[in-house]
């Protein structure tokens, strides 16, 4: 019996139109979500989301049609619809799409998986969550607590009328854990990496992240926050843990250098950028310690792949070297529009959305400092970890971020734990105050499925591997 993927491929060979270019992107995504809250298993849910996106370039116009109707007639209708949109937009588009040479890659990619999700019985996975959850409730002040696992396997097939054929099988795991404590009008919460420990692979991810050992520290830190003083206000050194760095990199490096933002596509929704095309190659984005790479080839990272959704083979690229901005994050279409080199980052959130420029894995490369050396170097500062609040302007410049937990650094030593830590700054100057970068021993690989962008809106997975980093002269403040 043929698989649905094989059936769709056979249909495409029949219905593919005679136009300048046509592609089919088939995506079959299976999810399973397991959650235990207050020691009670929450409804177990699975989903199987499957459909195709047909893209047509004809007479210089481009159009798409996405459908979950996978019959031959369903695909034929989608082809006709995409063709009609291509013809309608011919002559009134941002460019002549016929001038773009889309890749015609042939290849396969699969997430390396040591312990497949289905190799462990459902009851065993529930028992693991149950046992972990029970460890979170150790007193009356703990008012809510939960653990969960979100698993996704995404199989895709990309075909073009010019012979391109790419199959990819990606596996994603996102382990989550949270504990909420309360005393009167004070509620504090600690989570496992701010729900940012998404990785590719199987259940080996739980061992790598020491998931089962996390509850004790989370609970202790949450209770500690209830007794802690408010974070002080002032300008000071700021040491960020990887589970806050993920957000700092994402918002104030990743988004500003996305080429479609620079080209103005996102100005009605996600925003523009303070970065302009002339800055690439010369602009001092950060201190000389800042080295950032685009790397979809790191197997365990959340947004790894062999090819992007335009069929461009994935390669690692330097984005910022020694603080200098080198290359934007733009896929094939944006590269032609801008006349610039980019990366393989044309990606869609699913079969029902067209590809746009996304940051995928954007990593800050490790430096040479230990955490101890960074702390010792600080006369007056603060260590913050685990993001819980994020906000940045539409040019990706003025930001304000908050963390779940912080500890003061005084005369080279970690001292008082403080609650409600926040800091604010301006991207264009913040990274130039990067003072020390942690060595490989401080690096963590993080990822989140919630990067929102695009019209129509798309929420997609991104990965950020980063060490701890120390910044100077940061405006820090606390709660009310």
């Amino acid at each position, binding site marked *: 019996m043929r698989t649905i993927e094989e059936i769709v491929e056979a249909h495409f060979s029949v219905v593919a139109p005679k136009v300048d270019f046509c592609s089919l992107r088939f995506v079959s995504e299976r999810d399973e979500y397991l959650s235990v809250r207050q020691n009670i298993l929450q409804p177990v849910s699975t989903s*199987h*989301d499957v459909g195709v996106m047909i893209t047509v370039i004809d007479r210089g116009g481009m159009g798409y049609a996405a459908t979950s*109707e996978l019959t031959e007639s369903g695909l034929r209708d989608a082809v006709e619809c995409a063709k009609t949109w291509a013809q309608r937009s011919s002559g009134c588009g941002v460019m002549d799409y016929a001038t773009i040479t889309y890749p015609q890659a042939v290849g396969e990619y699969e997430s390396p998986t040591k312990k497949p999700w289905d190799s462990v019985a459902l009851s065993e996975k529930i028992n693991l969550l149950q046992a972990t959850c029970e460890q979170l409730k150790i007193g009356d002040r703990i008012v809510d607590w939960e653990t969960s696992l979100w698993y996704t396997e995404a199989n895709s097939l990309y075909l073009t009328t010019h012979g391109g054929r790419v199959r990819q099988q990606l596996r994603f795991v996102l382990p989550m854990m949270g504990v909420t404590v309360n005393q009167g009008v004070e509620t504090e919460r600690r989570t496992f990496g701010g729900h940012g420990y998404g990785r590719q692979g199987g259940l080996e991810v739980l061992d790598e992240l020491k998931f089962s050992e996390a509850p004790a520290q989370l609970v202790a830190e949450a209770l500690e926050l209830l007794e802690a003083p408010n974070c002080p206000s002032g300008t000071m050194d700021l040491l960020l843990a990887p589970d806050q760095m993920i957000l700092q990199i994402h918002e104030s490096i990743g988004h500003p250098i996305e080429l479609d933002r620079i080209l103005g596509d996102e100005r009605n929704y996600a925003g523009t950028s303070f970065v302009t095309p002339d800055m690439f190659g010369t602009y001092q984005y950060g201190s000389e310690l800042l080295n950032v790479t685009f790397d979809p080839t790191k197997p365990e990272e959340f947004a790894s792949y062999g090819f992007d959704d335009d069929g461009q083979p994935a390669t690692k690229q330097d984005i910022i070297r020694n603080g200098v901005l080198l290359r934007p994050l733009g896929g094939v279409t944006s590269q032609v529009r801008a006349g610039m080199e980019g990366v393989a980052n044309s990606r869609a959130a699913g079969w029902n959305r067209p590809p746009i420029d996304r940051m995928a894995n954007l990593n800050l490369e490790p430096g040479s400092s230990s955490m101890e050396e960074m702390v010792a170097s600080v006369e007056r500062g603060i260590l913050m970890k685990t993001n819980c609040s994020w906000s940045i302007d539409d040019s990706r410049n003025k930001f304000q971020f908050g963390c779940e937990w912080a500890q003061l650094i005084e005369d080279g030593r970690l001292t008082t734990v403080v609650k409600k830590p926040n800091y604010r700054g301006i991207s264009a100057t913040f990274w130039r105050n990067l003072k020390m970068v942690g060595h490989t021993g401080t690096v963590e690989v993080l990822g989140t499925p919630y990067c929102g962008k695009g019209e129509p809106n798309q929420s997609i997975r991104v990965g950020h591997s980063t060490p701890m980093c120390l910044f100077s002269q940061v405006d820090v403040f606390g709660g009310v």
Partner: protein
Amino acid sequence: MQTYFYQLADDITARMQGDERFTCTFSAEDSDFVRMNKGVVRQAGSVAQRSLTINLITGMRHTAGSVSLSGDLSMDRAWIDTMLVRSREKMPHLPEDPHHLYATDVRSSEQQGKNLLAKSSDVVPAILDAGHNRDMVGLYASGGMYYGFANSFGQRNWFSSFNHNLEWSFYSQADKAVKSRYSGFEWDLAAFRGKVDWANEQLDVLTHPSHTVHPGRYRVYISPYALYDVVGMLGWGCFGLKSHRTKQTPLLHMLEGGAKLHSAVTMFENTHDGIAPNFQDAGFIKPDYVSLIEKGELCNTLVSPRSAKEYGIPTNGASGHEAPESVEMLGGEIQTDQILRQLDTGIYINNVWYLNYSDRSACRMTGMTRFATFWVENGIIKAPLSVMRFDETLYRMLGENLIGLTAERDLIMDSTTYQMRSTESGRLPGALVGEFSFTL
């Protein structure tokens, strides 16, 4: 579409074994999306998607599975069969769920939308014409949305709606732009052109040099659209029963500390006049109105079936997120055409952007001004404002520092399109606020 869903529901009913029960939801859309940049088309296309979720129930055990539908009956029946087999395989591994609650009283309903939409092929040229010689960027979304519910007790609910939502920005330079919206159920070219003319008028002001203010406290007018974003933040845990019982609500100071908002603030969930379905995925029908804040005081919570069972109080048909979907706020006494005079000297905020809590327990939120936000002196718009960050508690914003609300309110159809086009909406006034805190 409705017939097809009901046919599948009957099929599922026939496939139940022994004491099995089911609840089932259907969602679908047929949408056109035309994305524009620089006054021309960036991406144009259509999305047709259908999805079915079945919650299979055996006694106190249950498990849910969702599947995309192809529209081909034999193919969809095969997928449903596979899903039911997998659900049955899972069932023995699942413990009983003490908090599972679903409707058993049969309350069928039907809300059929009329499709009065113009063809996108007719509308898009008019939009591009408006953007001719303008730096226009935006999205036109249009089409049908469909939701259904069915269960093994014979309840059947159906909702369909056909609307368009155009959001666009005319850019002046850099980050200076006027954002406009035209949403509805029927395309009216004259109404659209009226909005274009208004946007062009505001655009003229944006050509003036920007005014920059220092961090500090200012008198501000928050437009209904900006207030919708602020109230949208309240949907993030403020009104749910679970967030109240677990003390995670950002309204904790109202819940535990006796804090109040200004007596002019009355807010409620108005399902009756909203554009969302009035049923939810466990089969409960939502009441027409649920009062949330009345004259500044916390009132009811939104109670999902699960929370109802957990905490032992009746559900009011809230979704699992226990967030408002059709939020309404009463207006005040300020006439909209008097706003500039009432503002006198301060900041006219048309849009805010990227809000988040900076102190959740204290309901302090931060965000940015965006698009056409103006510096006003003596009741006259003087200049566009360079973007500013605010950081302010709800208790100050809509409490001690609230000067008044406009009498006129705007109906705002939520334009978000994550996964599917949204059916959420709001009806809100504008707010005149003193001592509003800008920090960066």
